[in-house]
């Protein structure tokens, strides 16, 4: 039996971020994680620190995303100090390409709405006509009718991020237990015991950061974390000398040189297979945007499952029945990693989710209809 300060269930980017955040605050952390066969969004991730397309209609979410994007450079530097790993973070912005008049109209509406809702936070963006897009993005295709640029956005290697979170947590005295699928949690207020992977740990705090696995575990802790999988399929090309520092939302060039191309949005249950139809559409859009990509070979295709709540926004909760038990679930584990490490972990240490994050409680899904 390992007595520790906090148990984290889930060792992906979200669980790993919380674990690192708790460890850097001085807590002794034990992470229980599944094995290589886990459904793991962190290993399928596109790697965007995405702001431009986040939060139209939900200013709280836009503000939260912006806060994390603003913290990302400091977070990446601290993570590298602890782990020795450069996650390749760069904040060169996002140049979104519109491929039709309909897309242009929707993009303008989205950006105007975010700005209108942002209040004093503000929201700076540039709408670019065809010629301005051609100046900004060398090699842009004739089918691109317009674009939009925001400077808030960035990207990184999600695989290096995952690895560095683990290494940093271990370096701070944390323990990581793999092949440890958790299906039962013994819970009492401020007292939790997990037995999995041949290890038993007990702690006054427990955090669910297990992606889609949270839904099944939450009721044992008096929490409600309704999530559904949404499949996204991606492609990556052979490595090419650097062409593009910013990302384009659905195209980014990695630090190593490959172009990642995304992505589909499908309801496919827990099937992480790929399909030629969805991948053809991904490739076609990429080539319509940057025709030179057609001369590059695709070296890999894969799919991942996004972690979607009923309204697609994150869930942060502490159990009213079992104080000390928290749930953290979101689709945007990379974008929000900085906020999870530097803010959410701090709130978990303090034992209280503050009022400005109360809007992300899953209680929002249980509003009674008026008679």
């Amino acid at each position, binding site marked *: 039996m390992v007595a520790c300060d906090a148990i984290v269930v889930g060792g992906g980017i979200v669980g790993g971020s919380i674990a690192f955040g708790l460890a850097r605050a001085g807590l002794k952390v034990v992470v229980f994680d599944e094995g290589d066969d886990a459904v793991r969004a962190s290993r399928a991730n596109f790697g965007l620190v995405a702001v431009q397309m986040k939060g139209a209609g939900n200013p709280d979410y836009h503000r939260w995303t912006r806060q994390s994007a603003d913290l990302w450079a400091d977070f990446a530097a601290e993570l590298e100090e602890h782990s020795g790993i450069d996650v390749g973070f760069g904040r060169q912005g996002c140049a979104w390409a519109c491929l039709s008049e309909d897309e242009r109209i929707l993009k303008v509406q989205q950006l105007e709405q975010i700005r209108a809702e942002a209040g004093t936070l503000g929201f700076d963006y540039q709408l670019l006509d065809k010629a301005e897009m051609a100046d900004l993005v060398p090699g842009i295709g004739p089918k691109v009718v317009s674009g939009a640029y925001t400077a808030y956005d960035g990207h990184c290697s999600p695989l290096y991020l995952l690895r560095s979170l683990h290494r940093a947590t271990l370096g701070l005295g944390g323990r990581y237990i793999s092949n440890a699928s958790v299906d039962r949690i013994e819970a009492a207020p401020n007292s939790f015991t997990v037995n999995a992977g041949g290890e038993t740990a007990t702690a006054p705090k427990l955090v669910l950061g297990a992606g889609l696995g949270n839904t099944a575990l939450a009721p044992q802790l008096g929490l409600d974390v309704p999530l559904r999988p949404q499949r996204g399929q991606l492609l990556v090309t052979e490595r090419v*000398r650097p062409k593009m520092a910013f990302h384009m939302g659905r195209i980014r060039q990695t630090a190593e*040189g490959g172009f990642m191309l995304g992505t589909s949005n499908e309801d496919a249950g827990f099937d992480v297979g790929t399909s030629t139809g969805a991948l053809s559409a991904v490739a076609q859009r990429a080539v319509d945007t940057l025709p030179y990509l057609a001369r*590059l070979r695709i070296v890999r295709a894969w799919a991942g499952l996004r972690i979607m709540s009923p309204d697609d926004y994150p869930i942060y909760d502490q159990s009213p029945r079992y104080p000390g038990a928290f749930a953290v679930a979101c689709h945007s584990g990379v974008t929000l990693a900085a906020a999870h490490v530097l803010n959410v972990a701090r709130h978990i240490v303090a034992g209280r989710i503050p009022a400005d994050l109360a809007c992300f409680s899953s209680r929002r899904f249980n509003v009674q209809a008026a008679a």
Partner: protein
Amino acid sequence: MFKQLPDDNAELVTVIIEEQSVKVPSDYSVAAAVLANWTGPSRTTPVSGAPRGPYCMMGACFDCLMEIDGVPNQQACMIPVAEGMSIRRQDGARGVEI
């Protein structure tokens, strides 16, 4: 470095490896031709510039990438030699013309 199996009846083709004309059996892969006429790394890696050569010889490891007849990043172990073929080292990441 490698000894070739004796085959007196092998039909030979001439390929050009980094400006050097060499004769190799016509049923060789490019990777085999390069190993039989080894003069150094067949590529350097895109990220660290580490020297590499053909390894798995069956299309899995991607360590034998070379520029073949002007096309970069070809898997040399999966492509048969042909008369007059130009074979060049793949130095780091390829470029792409816009």
